């Protein structure tokens, strides 16, 4: 049996899942080395019905989670290619830190200028979405290296607003 291996991180654990090439219908697979017989039906892209030992789960893919019976189960695929990037992001506790938009929105106010010294938890930018305003704070004390946005700008989720160093 020719199996492909996929590493899944879910609920804080790293699981090794081995799947056959064709994942439709009755399949034999391994989860952390334990054999599992499953019946898989793909209803649409990102939507499967999974039967394991009689139990049926209707599973929907939604971004970084799967939804089963209305509950979300977050997961990440452990892609070797992304390891470097993730290590980089996690490692910079003392280096420059970006303050990113936690949601799409409009910049209502910018509270700092480049070169300003800021304290930890000091507000730097206020963005607004859906009639709610959110003040974003500096994750650490430091100096504002860059202000990447101006008042009235529309920002996407994850977009860098300010860099503190």
């Amino acid at each position, binding site marked *: 049996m020719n199996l492909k291996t996929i590493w899944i991180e879910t609920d804080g654990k790293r699981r090794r899942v081995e799947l056959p090439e064709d994942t439709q219908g009755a399949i034999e697979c391994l989860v952390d080395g334990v054999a599992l017989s499953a019946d898989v039906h793909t209803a649409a892209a990102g939507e499967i019905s999974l039967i394991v030992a009689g139990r049926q789960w209707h599973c929907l893919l939604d971004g970084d989670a799967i939804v089963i019976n*209305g509950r979300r189960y977050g997961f990440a695929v452990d892609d070797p290619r992304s390891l470097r990037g993730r290590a980089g*992001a996690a490692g910079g506790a003392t280096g420059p830190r970006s303050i990113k938009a936690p949601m799409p929105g409009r910049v209502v106010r910018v509270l700092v200028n480049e070169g300003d010294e800021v304290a930890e938890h000091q507000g730097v930018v206020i963005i607004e979405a859906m009639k709610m305003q959110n*003040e974003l704070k500096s994750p650490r004390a430091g100096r504002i290296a860059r202000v990447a946005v101006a008042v009235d700008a529309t920002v996407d989720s994850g977009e860098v607003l300010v860099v503190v160093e």
Partner: protein
Amino acid sequence: MTEAMPIKKVLIANRGEIAVRVMRSCREMGLRTVAVYSDVDRGALHVSYADEAYRLGPGPATESYLRGDLILDFARRSGADAIHPGYGFLSENAAFVEACEAAGVIFIGPPASSMRALGSKTKARQAADAAQMPRVPGSVTGLANIDEALRVAREIGYPVMLKAAAGGGGKGMRAVATEAELPTAYTAAGSEAERSFGSGEVYLEKLIERPRHIEVQVMADMHGRCLYLGERECSVQRRHQKVIEEAPSAVVGEVLRRRMGEAAVRLALSASYVNAGTVEFLVDSQENFYFLEMNTRLQVEHPVTELITGLDLVQMQLRVAMGEPLGLCQEDVQLRGHAIECRIYAEDPENNFMPSPGRITRLERPSGPGVREDSGIYEGWTVPLDYDPMLSKLVCYGATRAAAIDRMLRALDEYVVGGIRTNIALFRRILLDEDFRAARLDTGYLERLLLVPSIEEEDRVPEDVVALAAALLASTGRRDEVRNGMGRTDLPESRWAATGRREGLRA
């Protein structure tokens, strides 16, 4: 189907689920519908549901849905005989009502005079006194200064509540436990009211402890008849915003219902009220009820009343606006069963209720027995940043309160909104909570519940199945979704807990 009716075409001066809901009743009555939209709403459901559609302007409400002048202009150009304002936006704007009257367009709501008499909180309190309605002890007029505030507070006794006269949605409100706190709170409430509503006028009320929020739906025709259509319990609130509403209230019996209903009708008739309105009360643990305010429009939560009365409130509004007398009398209004509504919002309860606009990549909607969904969204639509985060209202009916709750839990399990975050999981938590199921509610209930960490539900899917499903979906699913999934882990800030100041500006 359509007999000769004074209204043949209705412009709906609103957006989202309420615009669609109003259009549905219009269609059923054979009336043509006219939508208006802002630039960010060109693709919105209320536009594609309408017979005609006109662009108002850019996204911000002040440049679009609040532009009464443009809206009246489109009513004239399209030949609409009437305007339905929905809720929010221009629905309680007496000047707009007068502009409609001047332009010869029927405003589907009360006349400007009733709106002025009952719309301002302080004026409404005077009207309530005149109608001999019980109300929370306190000042009827705005407080001139801190000295008057101190004097009034001493009269009614602490704890007291400061409130903005022009307010709503919890803005300009401050609970004050002792005299020492009053000066600071008075200044803060006044300046918040000034910023939010353009008027710093505040007044004082006795603070009712652990009150329930219960409101009475009224409907009045142009011929002097006014009915009450039962009550709604709206005590499940967060930051003074209703989250779950139900009808009837578990604590209102026949006698209390009639007393509250008759008081509400008295108030409406005293101001020559016409059309749909809601009189809000606080109810204490001794079944005392106190007038709070009157909403001179259709409410978000009107569907729960529709389900237990069997009536269509929007159709009644339209018929009243055409000058028809109400076709039923008070004895004809019979309540049956129980209905619950959940307001589905684009917000993330796990992340401090952060708003979550964006593209809806997947939508599975609940249906079947006893389930009603009033929605303003569709799969593929991008929820804009500019407005209230309400996506839809899920409403369930059951023969009993318990049956309605269990049906709602079933419907919530069927409801999947992908691509953005919603508060669906929060409802599941509330509906499983013992206090909620026992109807031990007051307006502080939800805030207290949210202080308790959420307990893991029992029937979790086994971990190996989750891993297998994830692996299967990741290897066969849509590439872009999978990429998003992995992308998220690159963003430690995406879980960033927003501790920032939040202003609850929702209507």
